[in-house]
């Protein structure tokens, strides 16, 4: 690693031009650079204070969700097809703890902490009996659990509000007055507050994941992925390691759920937490690069960007050039959404299974011919 540093002892004198040092900084600490850009952007780009700010906030929340999924799918190599269920549990527990129709009405931080813990506990409760199963069976268990959660959220109307969801979820810091301004009111009026809240949460998660990757636990996750038997022979308790990955994934997804409910000020209807959402997040992680933090972030940005930027733009362009006067869905760009995603998955698996920004370790593993 030391050799990569262009700013060694000899160039303290300033012999290395500023530009080169900047490039080196971005390459080494890309996450800091990206966070810095995101932190400054709303002050420079006025659009981020409006509707765009809300969309970028949602993007950050999905990034958190995908980083959570990455722990299980990327590091530990367990296919998880129901991450949206944990996203939903986080959102609903948070909403139950804060909405006016329930007696709890906790503060934001307390409610978020409780719901993250609760989501992790539910993850443990599901994982403990099922993690012994082989990979593809586990995938089906998570998928089935996702369906159970969705149906339950939809049908337990007395508790979850059914299709209406729970609302209004109060903004963070409601009733807290700092310097004469009500923090809750500020959150409700200016989307930049949520933007920074989500950005801060994302920053914390990214840094935590960076640390985890290199920790004893993170290395154990990877060891179990690469060869469970060999890992157990080295004294790693595979079940415990997998369980911790499951709990960590669930907890991070729960955190994303809290932020989601708070930023929308409703839990939305249970369909927001269905299989499609799980698969989209999984697509993002796989497309970007399993087990790679920058890859995961890029994958989410691409998928969300497809839906919110590219598809509307292409549809508008098609309309403008009058290619599609009859309004047939065959000639609209967004009509091909599923096929494009599907094709992307197939092609990535065929030609670049390690994703766009691969983690070095996984790329090495995937390009080795398996017997």
């Amino acid at each position, binding site marked *: 690693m030391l050799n990569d540093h262009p700013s060694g002892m000899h160039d303290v004198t300033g012999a290395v031009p500023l530009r080169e040092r900047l490039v080196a900084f971005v390459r080494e600490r890309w996450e800091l650079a990206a966070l810095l850009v995101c932190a400054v952007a709303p002050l420079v780009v006025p659009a981020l204070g409006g509707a765009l700010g809300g969309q970028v906030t949602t993007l950050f929340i999905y990034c958190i969700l995908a980083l959570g999924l990455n722990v299980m799918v990327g590091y530990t190599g367990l296919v998880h097809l129901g991450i949206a269920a944990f996203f939903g549990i986080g959102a609903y527990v948070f909403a139950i703890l804060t909405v006016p129709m329930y007696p709890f009405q906790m503060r934001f931080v307390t409610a978020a902490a409780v719901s993250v813990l609760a989501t992790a506990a539910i993850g443990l409760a599901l994982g403990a009996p099922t993690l012994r199963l082989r990979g593809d069976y586990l995938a089906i268990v998570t998928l089935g659990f996702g369906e159970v959660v969705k149906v339950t959220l939809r049908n337990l109307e007395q508790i979850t509000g059914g299709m209406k969801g729970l609302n209004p979820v109060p903004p963070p810091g409601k009733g807290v007055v700092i310097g004469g301004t009500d923090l809750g009111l500020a959150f409700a009026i200016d989307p930049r507050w949520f933007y920074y809240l989500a950005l801060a949460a994302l920053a914390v998660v990214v840094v935590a994941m960076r640390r985890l990757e290199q920790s004893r636990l993170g290395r154990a996750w990877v060891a179990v992925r690469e060869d469970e038997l060999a890992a157990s022979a080295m004294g790693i308790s595979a079940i415990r390691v997998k369980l911790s990955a499951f709990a960590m994934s669930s907890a991070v997804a729960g955190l994303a759920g809290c932020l989601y409910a708070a930023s929308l000020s409703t839990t939305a209807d249970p369909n927001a937490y269905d299989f499609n959402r799980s698969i989209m997040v999984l697509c993002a992680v796989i497309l970007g690069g399993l087990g790679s933090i920058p890859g995961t972030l890029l994958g989410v940005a691409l998928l969300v960007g497809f839906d919110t930027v590219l598809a509307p733009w292409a549809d508008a362009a098609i309309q403008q050039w009058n290619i599609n006067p009859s309004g047939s869905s065959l000639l609209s760009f967004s009509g091909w959404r599923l096929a494009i995603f*599907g094709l992307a998955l197939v092609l990535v698996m065929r030609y670049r299974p390690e994703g766009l920004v691969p983690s070095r370790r996984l790329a090495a593993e995937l390009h080795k011919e398996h017997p």
Partner: protein
Amino acid sequence: MQFFLQQCLIGITNGALVALVALGYTMVYGIIRLINFAHGDLIMLGACLALTLVSAFGLAGGGMVTTWFGVVLLVLLCGLFCGGLNVAVDRIVYRPLRNAPKLAPLVSAIGVSFIFMNVGLFWLGPADRSFPELLPAANLLAGDGLQFTAKDLLVLVVVIPLMVALSLLVKSTRLGKAMRAVSQDPTAAALVGIDVDRVITFTFFVGGFLGGAASVIYGLYINTISFQMGFQNGLYAFTAAVLGGIGSIPGAVVGGLVIGLVRSLSSAYVGERWTGAIVFVILIVILVFRPEGLLGRGTKEKV
């Protein structure tokens, strides 16, 4: 009591349909250990073709003989279509990934299911489409007790011969023997001179053919199809396959019947809206306590 029996009858007919789809999952899994996520959507495409053919042939409103003849023709055509499509997907998508890590074909199958769904969306449009009622709704049983209509008869008339044919095929033909050999150990099968790729292709074809037949019956029996039907039905069928012991052909049939009964009884006694949750809770419980399924044999992880 009569209500209960009626629900059981509905459950068995439904279950036979589920079993037909489950066979497609279980055969493919048995031979290349792939959960073919696209199977449900393959059946959706089969139903699209069936709907198109019914209108093209003008089958609705024909006489008794024309109708039954037409149904058999539909089953054959849709079976060939789905079987061929399944083989094509295997050739193009799954075959290059035979030696890849397990995740790769599974994710590709999800991708294929998306592509199929998009094709179905173009074919049917976003809304539910009603499938014409070709068969009379009159009760075939005497008295005003149990209801057993021509539709129920159709399911059994198509499903039972297909299953008998399948078990004969697997048990007593050369190809069936080769299939069993490949599913036990592909390397050893190749060593004794079995063309493994050909056997896999054939398995995909048979699984797809059964799925195509199921799609026609689904249309005629349920009478509503949509581009999203594949996911839910595929999931139920897969649950049935796992329940019976994935890779086991009689297991898929038993699993299908159990799932059919669970669905009809839980819809009748608990409420339709909980059915999905009940089926998957059963799936999870079974996987936890008996991961090899009801009739399956346990597979040991190989070092």
